[in-house]
């Protein structure tokens, strides 16, 4: 079970009161985690990665185990600690000003 930490606006949109818990089949990659997230919570389609191209939105970042994984290949293996659920996969809204 993979734990995904969502930014507050997306938790509200998905109707979640806490983190998302997702079954993700091995090998656990960013793409598989995001596919599972969007399949479980289709209202999040287009909010993390572009609805059309599937690319990460400009102001969204992916972190895990103290590392910024935003620019890693989307099909690269995530750390084992994410795959076994001992560490979360974090989706972060970039700090980009406060309009």
């Amino acid at each position, binding site marked *: 079970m993979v734990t995904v930490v969502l930014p507050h606006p997306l938790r509200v949109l998905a109707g979640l009161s806490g983190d998302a818990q997702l079954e993700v089949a091995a090998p656990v990659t960013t793409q598989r985690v995001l596919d599972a997230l969007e399949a479980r919570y*289709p209202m999040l389609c287009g909010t993390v990665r572009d609805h*059309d191209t599937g690319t990460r939105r400009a102001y969204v970042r992916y972190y895990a185990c103290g590392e910024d994984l935003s620019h890693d290949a989307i099909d690269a293996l995530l750390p084992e600690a994410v795959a076994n659920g001992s560490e979360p996969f974090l989706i972060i809204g970039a700090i980009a000003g406060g309009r």
Partner: protein
Amino acid sequence: MSSLRLLIGTRKGAFILTADAKRKNWRVDGPHFPGWPVYHLKGSADDPNRIYASQVSDWFGQIIQRSDDGGKSWLQPGTPPGEQAKAPNGMPKGESNKFVYDTSEATGKPLTTHQWYDGTQHPWEFKRVWHLEPAPGNPDQVYAGIEDAALFQSRDGGRTWQELAGLRGHGTGPRWMPGAGGMCLHTIIADPADPRRIYVAISAAGAFRSLDGGASWTPINRGLRSNFLPDPTAEIGHCVHHVTMHPARPQTLYMQKHWDVMRTDDGGDNWREVSGNLPTDFGFVIDVHAHEPETIYVVPIKSDSEHFPLEGKLRVYRSRTGGNEWQELSRGLPERDCYVNVLRDAMSVDKLDPCGVYFGTTGGQVYGSADGGESWQAIVHDLPAVLSVEAQVIP
């Protein structure tokens, strides 16, 4: 007895203000979608409880919301709550937030480039929905004006969206350019007497007209003058801020351009300036009285570099002669130290008698007049910056 509903889009959520027909005592409901910019909400003229809303974030993109009960509850129409992500036919849901430019052979691959701020060419990129316009006669049909500028349509209550590609397809796209707020299609006017007649306006491209339900388009900018253009009277490139039309006069349009208040009486074939005695003819909003097609309202703003009222005095100006002769309306509005702006979609009128007029400010005030503009009251003082105001009369 009729009642009033104001749909307010703000920088940090949506609010719904309601009152009875006296329009004295208001109830404030919200925020809906708290923390998210809500660019626009609009109800269907045929079913006022059917409301569409554009919820949008620089971080997380575009969300289309729909209410079928007057704003009490909301749904993303392409994503019914609790249902599986894919329909039985395998089609993905979550489709109501998906706006993809048409690049098909069938529509001539209209995707091209537009002019960037520095004069170079830049590809079209979807950013947000600025305006939602339910089509006359069918609550399930709704138009969306988007940034980068294009017109989309849904015929299934907002579940899916398709571009009306003829607008970008007529060849002037490379000369369109973004204004300071982005390259937005912000005005959509569908003639209730002839739904095939549609007007749109784009900042900064100009105004366009379709007579075939959006399949093909004609630029209608003759008579506009913009000194920031190499050719000030060019066919394309004008920074139109807003356009309005009275339903009884579908050939007459009023325009607040970047500078200049303009009027046409031949469906946009020829425009003439009607700024007259306005203290400044820069501004964003313009609207027309519900029962008097020659009565129009603007809020003059000092200049394109100083987006606030002259002398710190918030004023609405009204013309009862279709322009040129303007009267200052100030009763109940701030007399000093007011430095707010009134954005392009932030004015609306109701259809009661006397006509009500409403506008919202970037300072979070929503002002209303229940007597055609003679006097004003602040309905609310402290909302987030107001992006849009739409008035609905509920039978």
